């Protein structure tokens, strides 16, 4: 068959143009789980910011008379302490509201710092490759094999405990996982034809990295950062429990969970409520981040839009049929 034989001039059908994706807000409201997640995140941030105005009590105020009061709906509960009190008579609700400050700050800032550091190292290693890659990844291996808690205790013992020391130390002990992930994706993305095309066009390395490689690794990075957030919150709790993290009278959710453990059998609310706060926060971030991931991916975003449209039409048809 000669090439001139198949001059079939079938024009491929042009896919129907989807109308421009709606504004971000209406798109978010459409995804109920994500909207609820974002609402929760905003609520917690609001509580943390305005803790002095919102919290019913001083989180450090003790009252021996009101020790270990259960939450309001239980037999001995009172309206004065909605979520009960701890072994020193401190209000659990107030402690959760104040604790959000330290927990959110440490979690968010540490995640950001560690992710940035890890991403930079990973990009560098994955993009340059060769010997640079080997050296950087061996550094990562060394850091991974070094017991994190020991490093934390060492640094805190030297610098003295405090929120920012904790942030710094936790960042330094948690960036490696990002470096490994990013390095892996970058060294495979580097081989993709669109990156080759960009280089043949004459893009400088910085442009190749920021326009072509980085946008395509955002999804896994986002997922990892959220998983790590939980880890950071728990690590902070562990360090605070050992007395090297958040210092009383300040508090954090992790610290409350840790110190409430001793009373687990007689006062379950000490561990449960701060623990629930951690769970709900992480869940909210997850729901919202999932939406964000889809929204930043053009293909996924259009698919979601198409699904929503079909659902709407099906509903309309059913209504007409009824």
């Amino acid at each position: 068959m000669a090439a001139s034989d198949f001059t079939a001039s079938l024009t491929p059908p042009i896919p129907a143009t989807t109308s421009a994706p709606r504004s971000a807000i209406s798109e978010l409201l459409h995804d109920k789980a994500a909207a609820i997640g974002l609402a929760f995140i905003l609520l917690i941030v609001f509580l943390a910011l305005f803790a002095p105005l919102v919290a019913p009590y001083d989180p450090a105020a003790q009252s021996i008379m009101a020790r270990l009061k259960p939450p309001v709906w239980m037999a001995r509960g009172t309206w004065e302490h909605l979520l009960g009190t701890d072994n020193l008579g401190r209000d659990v609700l107030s402690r959760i509201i104040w604790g959000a400050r330290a927990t959110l700050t440490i979690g968010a800032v540490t995640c950001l710092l560690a992710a940035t550091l890890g991403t930079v190292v990973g990009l560098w290693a994955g993009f340059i490759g060769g010997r640079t890659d080997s050296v950087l990844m061996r550094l990562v291996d060394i850091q991974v094999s070094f017991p994190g808690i020991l490093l934390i205790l060492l640094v805190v013992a030297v610098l003295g405990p405090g929120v920012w020391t904790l942030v710094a130390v936790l960042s330094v002990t948690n960036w490696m996982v990002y470096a490994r992930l990013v390095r892996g994706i970058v060294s495979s993305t580097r081989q993709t034809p669109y990156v080759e095309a960009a280089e043949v066009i004459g893009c400088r390395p910085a442009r190749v990295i920021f326009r072509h490689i980085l946008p395509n690794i955002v999804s896994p990075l986002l997922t990892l950062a959220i998983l790590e957030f939980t880890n950071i919150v728990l690590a902070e709790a562990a360090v605070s429990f050992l007395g090297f993290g958040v210092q009383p009278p300040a508090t954090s959710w992790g610290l409350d969970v840790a110190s409430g453990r001793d009373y687990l059998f007689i006062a379950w609310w000490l561990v449960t409520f701060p623990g629930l706060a951690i769970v709900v926060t992480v869940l909210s971030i997850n729901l919202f981040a999932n939406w964000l991931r889809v929204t930043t991916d053009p293909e996924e975003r259009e698919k979601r839009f198409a699904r929503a449209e079909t659902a709407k039409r099906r509903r309309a048809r059913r209504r007409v049929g009824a």
Partner: protein
Amino acid sequence: MTAAPVLSVSGLAIDYELSSGGLFRKRRSVSAVSAVSFELAPGETLGLVGESGSGKTTVGRAVLRRIPAAKGRIVFDGEDITNLQGEALRRLRARMQIVLQDPYTSLNPRMKVSSIVAEPLIVHGLAASAEEARTAVAELLERVGLPGDAADRYPHSFSGGQRQRIGIARALALKPALIVADEPVSALDVSVRAQVVNLMQDLQRDLGISYLFIAHDLAIVRHISHRVAIMYAGRIVEIAPRQAIYERPIHPYTEALLSAVPVANPKLQRARRRIVPPGESVDIANPPKGCRFHPRCPLASNRCRKEEPQLLRKSGDHFAACWNRDA
């Protein structure tokens, strides 16, 4: 070919490293391509044909300076580009472009078509304003036959043929003198192939672009090429004008290759004799001594087993590397 060639490659050899020679290992390499020479005139298409692993893609990448040459010279537009580095190399990129094989992975999924096509203009500072870039993109998209609203869409909403058109528009943006087309249609549906090939021919006629057209589909190559080079195991075994290659092949490998192409007429097809060279393709890490084709060649003589034939003029523009055949 009276005009000065756009591209002239002489004695090109490319080695691939098998192990990159770490601290404790010795550097080992394999010769992927050697003694490759050809010229390409302005507005000409040279088809580069060969089976998988014959080194045709490697040659294309070396011409674009994506892979370093171990030996030989690459002269582009009268300038020796074999060792060009840094900024000079980046500027050279404006004049030679690539069209890649797989249209599904060669476009960044997170960039709109307008950004993809405008990117070459932006990185070479050729579009003064966003307005200018938009006009240029609209012209390019029209040129390659894409609908006007394509600019605002993402690559995933296009078919394979349309995506390949986007890739061609991107390559055209810089008005290159040479385009290396690395199997540009082999990933496309048969019905779309002809359209894309015809588009490439139209562009060549209007803009005077030269193509180094890498392919394994002989029918497509016959359709688009002015001259054809046949590669086997890292060597060019025959190079000649299209007519001569397809009607009077000299090298036994070319003969075998052509006999493998089916003919659309069943009667003719039954009457044809297929030449099937015995054995496997050459392992380039351990090539045979002498002519690389001799273990599979029906004409192999003692000389073929000892001495490697050079690419010699057999008649007019017809070159072949064979001891036992003359035009």
